[in-house]
């Protein structure tokens, strides 16, 4: 893993360009509602938080997958879902503590962020750099480790 997707909510202006970029890249019809990234209210005035999969080190989704359909891509660091292996038991959607493994009824499949195979469209199109795909060396140590399961 060379890079990490870094989220800086203070820079987010809530324009939802990331949602559009994501759905154009992944969903069939490019509907923002089918995106794998969600711009949510942060609970304060003018504060938005782009919520997306954080690719946890010890991920609950990977643990919950009983058929081994979720695997980390060592090159990009993303946890990728193998659709051919998925049995749609919905365990990962229920287990993810951040709600970022979702069932897409339009495609009738479970979807999650795969970092677009190493070039996340959300980060590429984010106008304010609230989303950045940074080399690990440039990420502050506190930002590197995300632990989901204790």
């Amino acid at each position: 893993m060379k890079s990490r997707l870094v989220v800086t909510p203070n820079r987010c202006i809530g324009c939802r360009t990331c949602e559009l970029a994501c759905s154009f890249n992944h969903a069939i019809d490019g509907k923002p509602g089918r995106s794998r990234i969600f711009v949510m209210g942060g609970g304060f005035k003018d504060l938005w938080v782009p919520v997306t999969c954080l690719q946890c080190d010890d991920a609950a989704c990977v643990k919950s997958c009983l058929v081994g359909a979720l695997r980390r891509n060592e090159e990009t660091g993303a946890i990728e879902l193998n659709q051919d292996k998925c049995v749609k038991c919905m365990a990962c959607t229920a287990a993810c503590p951040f709600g970022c493994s979702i069932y897409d009824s339009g495609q009738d499949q479970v979807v999650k962020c795969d970092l677009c195979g190493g070039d996340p469209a959300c980060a590429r199109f984010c106008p304010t750099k609230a989303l950045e795909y940074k080399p690990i060396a440039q990420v502050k140590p506190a930002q590197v480790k995300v632990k989901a399961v204790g």
Partner: protein
Amino acid sequence: MVHLTINGQVVQANDGEMLLDVIKRMGIDIPAICQHDAVEPFGSCRLCTVEITKADWDGWKNYVTSCLYPVADGLIVNTHSETVNEIRKTLLDLYLARHPNSLFVRKLAAEHGVTKTSYEEIPDGDDCILCGLCTRICERMGFSAISTVGRGHSKEVAPPLKEAPPDCVGCLACAQCCPTGHIKFSEEGASRSIWGKQFEKIACSKCGKLTITKEFADSLSETRNIPREYFDVCDDCRRKEIALTMGRLAQWSREEETV
């Protein structure tokens, strides 16, 4: 690495790979309905049968299920030879006789040019083609709640003693993967019923959205070491929660900057 010829095209394949994987990778469409990547190949539907030969076989040919046949150097494969097509048609003809009411079987047979069976139809035939995919997936998931029981004409997929299976957690993986849609389940409000067993779905403690069954969550937290409380809140509310948590942190750093 091995080299083989498929439909006249020389391709590379990894040692130990099955023929079907290579055929699929080439984008060649052959039916394989009992195959699923989550489980080992089984070869029960026989529809992925292909013709194989080698240069030194003196013109002899063999017909094998490609899902179970490992690739070998110098293999010459034909996925749609006349005989293979004939084998597939015969199989579908038999399927059609056994399952005349199955939409899936009728559609697949029609795609291969079989619209009417030449055998005697079983008028009340069900949709189960006995491919065993559901039982294999259930076993792979670690539950083994269902299996094939009986032999010959009376063979069917059922829970032990045909009673509500104690090991079933109601994950619906069997029904989701059944190629013909034979496995039936019913959902009414928070309750789910499959294989004659009743399940209660978890309602999100915040919004009430229904997620997986309680039994499935209990089993996951026990065998996979996932805290049980992870399953109490639905994915929508989880996202809201994390947004508020990250929002609070962002607000703090915003206030610090302005001070």
